[in-house]
């Protein structure tokens, strides 16, 4: 009886509309991975296990009251920054980038932690300065945002740096960052483009250039974009059918289970499938924004809003890159790409969403 009551309590902190949508996405993901991995049941099992772990973490986080989440913001952020500094000093170089840090037996990618720690930190900051919010607080928040972003960008991992800054920016935006400042930042960003270009690595410049014309380097940087666009385009309106994609099954498509899994999806399920996927994503985002709107306090609102928009950003950037309208950056398609860390981070975010959704009564009382 006690266990049943305990389970009931746990279940009461889940948001069922959101959970249902996530399950739908996961089901789609399992079918997609089975095809993308070449009908490899072993890989499918690994993917399913990643999902179960991510669901478990989501359930746990959903049951953590927001005040504890608030309390974790500063330590988590500090830890993240320290680890990032550690990476800069002692990190492993993989594929020319210094992203991994050895911690005992395993190694971690601290930039992933920042995807959650960043909005958490900023939401914490605004939550405690809500009453006396001044323009300088936005400045401090911008600084808090800039430190990890610069560290990640120097690794170099421009994609993750942009995603982290996006998640931080969403907090600033929802916290009421004045429009004139945003406009000013936009102008500044535009003006600094040529300077930024100067600081980009050759391979990064190449990625941007190949986006403009992939055929300039069809066997090098343009290869990914060409092959993924061919995959999606050849899928047509209704797709080639599940397990019938040729581009991925014949290895023309690189990274077809991870970052480029959407090309397999587009090839096999066509425009119809893509619309379905967009709708599913949109429904999740809408649910997230609705949770944010109805959140009881600023922290909850900011977290829910930022996490939801970060989720949207991942999905948009990935699909944009795979379909050839954005440069190639290493961003997985949320819930669809193979990879445990990214999935855990995403589901952890949804855990926070559920936590702020279901603990509102507790806070109010």
């Amino acid at each position: 009886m006690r266990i049943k009551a305990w389970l009931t309590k746990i279940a009461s902190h889940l948001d069922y509309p959101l959970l249902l949508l996530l399950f739908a996405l996961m089901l789609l993901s399992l079918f997609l991975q089975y095809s993308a991995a070449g009908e490899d049941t072993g890989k499918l099992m690994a993917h399913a296990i990643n999902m179960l772990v991510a669901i478990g973490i989501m359930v746990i986080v959903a049951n953590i009251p927001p005040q504890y989440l608030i309390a974790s913001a500063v330590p988590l952020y500090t830890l993240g920054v320290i680890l990032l500094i550690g990476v800069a000093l002692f990190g492993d170089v993989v594929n020319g980038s210094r992203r991994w840090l050895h911690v005992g037996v395993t190694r971690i990618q601290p930039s992933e932690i920042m995807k959650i720690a960043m909005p958490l930190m900023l939401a914490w900051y605004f939550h405690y300065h809500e009453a006396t919010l001044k323009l300088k607080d936005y400045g401090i928040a911008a600084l808090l945002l800039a430190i990890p972003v610069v560290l990640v960008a120097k690794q170099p991992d421009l994609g993750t740096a942009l995603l982290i800054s996006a998640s931080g920016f969403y907090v600033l935006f929802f916290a009421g960052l004045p429009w004139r400042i945003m406009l000013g930042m936009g102008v500044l960003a535009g003006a600094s483009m040529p300077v930024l270009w100067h600081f980009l690595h050759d391979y990064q410049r190449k990625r941007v250039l190949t986006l403009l014309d992939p055929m300039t380097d069809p066997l090098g940087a343009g290869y990914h974009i060409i092959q993924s666009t061919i995959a999606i385009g050849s899928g047509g309106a209704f797709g080639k059918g599940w397990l019938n994609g040729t581009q991925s099954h014949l290895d023309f498509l690189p990274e077809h289970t991870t970052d480029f899994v959407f090309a397999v999806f587009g090839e096999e399920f066509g425009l119809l499938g893509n619309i379905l996927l967009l709708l599913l994503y949109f429904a999740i985002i809408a649910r997230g924004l609705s949770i944010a709107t109805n959140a009881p306090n600023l922290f909850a609102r900011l977290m829910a809003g930022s996490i939801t928009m970060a989720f949207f950003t991942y999905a948009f950037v990935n699909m944009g890159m795979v379909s050839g309208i954005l440069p190639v950056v290493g961003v997985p398609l949320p819930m669809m790409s193979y990879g445990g860390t990214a999935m855990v981070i995403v589901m952890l975010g949804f855990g926070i969403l559920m936590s702020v959704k279901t603990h509102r009564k507790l806070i109010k009382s």
Partner: protein
Amino acid sequence: MREQAEIKHYHTEAHDFRRRIMIAAGFVVVLFLTLLARFFYVQVLEHDRYFALAESNRISIVPTPPNRGIIFDRNGVVMAHNYSAYTLELTPSKIKNLNDTIDALAQLVEITPANRKHFAKIMAESRNFETLPLRTRLTDEEVARVAANRYRLPGVEVKARLFRQYPQNASASHLIGYIGRINDADLVKLQNDGRYDNYRGTDHIGKVGVEQSFENVLHGTTGAEQVETDAGGHAVRTLSHTNPISGDNLVLTIDSKLQSIVEHAFGNYRGALVALDPKTGGVLAFVSNPGFDPNLFVDGIDSTNWNALNTSADRPLLNRALRGAYPEGSTIKPFMALAGLHYDVRTPNDTIADPGYFMLPNSSHRYRDWKPNGHGSVNMHLSIVQSCDTYYYRLANDLGIDRMHDFLSQFGFGKKTGIDMDGELAGVLPSRAWKAKHSKQPWYPGETVIAGIGQGYNLATPLQLAVATAALANGGLVLKPQLVEAIIDSGTGQRRTIAPQIVTQASITPAQLKVITDAMIDVTRPSGTASVASAGAPYLIAAKTGTAQVVGIRQNEKYNAGKMLATHRDHALFIAFAPADAPKIAIAVLIENGGHGGTVAAPIARAAMDYYLLKKLPKDMPAINPTGDNVNAD
């Protein structure tokens, strides 16, 4: 109040937040619609283009090269065939560091410096994205070792390939020729001939000999496989295929055993022998000595062997039978005698008095006979038996160069025989027109005189001599020499015999020919110039010896072989056919710097005739296996 203000503040803030949420939602909608537009563009509007791209991405046409035809001798002995062996092949375009990969492979299988050098050479000549052999003929153990390590050696493959092999090694090398890797010059030729498509997937092409001249027959038709490939170019499955059609097999006219007997008889002499079947023009033996091992050339000859062959003073790569042009010397005399009869300049019984030299009217220059004091009274018969020079100096002078040229050219002198092998020389049968073309000087009567004994400008290949001799043996009928007797269709096994081809009938009568033949028979009898070499033959031989001057001898000098450079000594010539009463074989032999034809050239012809007519092996001939069982025909 204060509480109310806070609540109001809360409300405005919440209101602002709600507005910002709506803005964010709008942002999401706009960007998702952008994606949707992009999807619509590539999946609907541009679908056909991308679909075609995806199809061509995965479907590639892989040529399947045909098996090259096998070459047999007239008795079915294999002269050239294919064997399957494992090769270690590298695709340079897929390998980052070639040297590292080769070093790694050297740990697994034996790779000699020669292998490396050879690989570097063929790589320099190769077409893009080609797979090139590093080492051939891997043992099973080596194959296993490479296979076990293949995962760490991208771009390395072990392939089972067909290799050309010449089981007779150096025997008949000039006749068979060899195949070699297709080079740029070959490619241009293939493209110009419109044969290029049929050579996709083929690495080798006939370079010389029959392998070259019958390339179109031997090569076959390339098939194609439509395969689905992955990005690495590995075939995943075959969608459709057209089988290649193997090249047709060739049956040569030569008797490989006769060939090797002759080669053995040559020993260290440089020279050539061509034996023909006078009734068909079929080449029974085609020897140019020394030869070479054609197997060395198949996958590109290494520089050591190449230099050895190329710089050797014996010039083993020169096909002397086809491309060696020598003065006919006294072997021209039977043909000259026929010309004399034909133009009624001589009757068989006309005699001349030979003082040992001939002088043109109003000239003191003595055209000397080989016999210093002359042959005395000489008729046509004796002029051939004793090879009297003075008789022919006078005959030539009486005939004149124009008639000589017209008559002798009927026998094929001065023009290509038309043999089914590329690169033959036409030799020189001098005429006024020829000289006008090659020199500003007019034709001098003295030049006619020496042309009468096959000296001066005269040049003929051993093949031409053999063809002319065969014509004597065949009633004056000149046939085109042929190396290939039949082509066997690889698919149906049907044998297509190549019919003899008549070039011309020389204008001679049987009576005239009998005079000459009788004299040539006596050449091989006691008192004839070839009596020693012909002694004891149980069949009649009709022959003529010859000695061709390599350097001029001054008026008051004597030819002394012992005092001369070896390469300035006379060439020895010998033509013969046998049995003289019913000829089955006609032979021309040339020995470079061999001296007198009857001494060194005739015994070689005799060995050939003894074997061909009597199946008799020379006494010193090592046991050879005429069935070719020693051939490793895997």
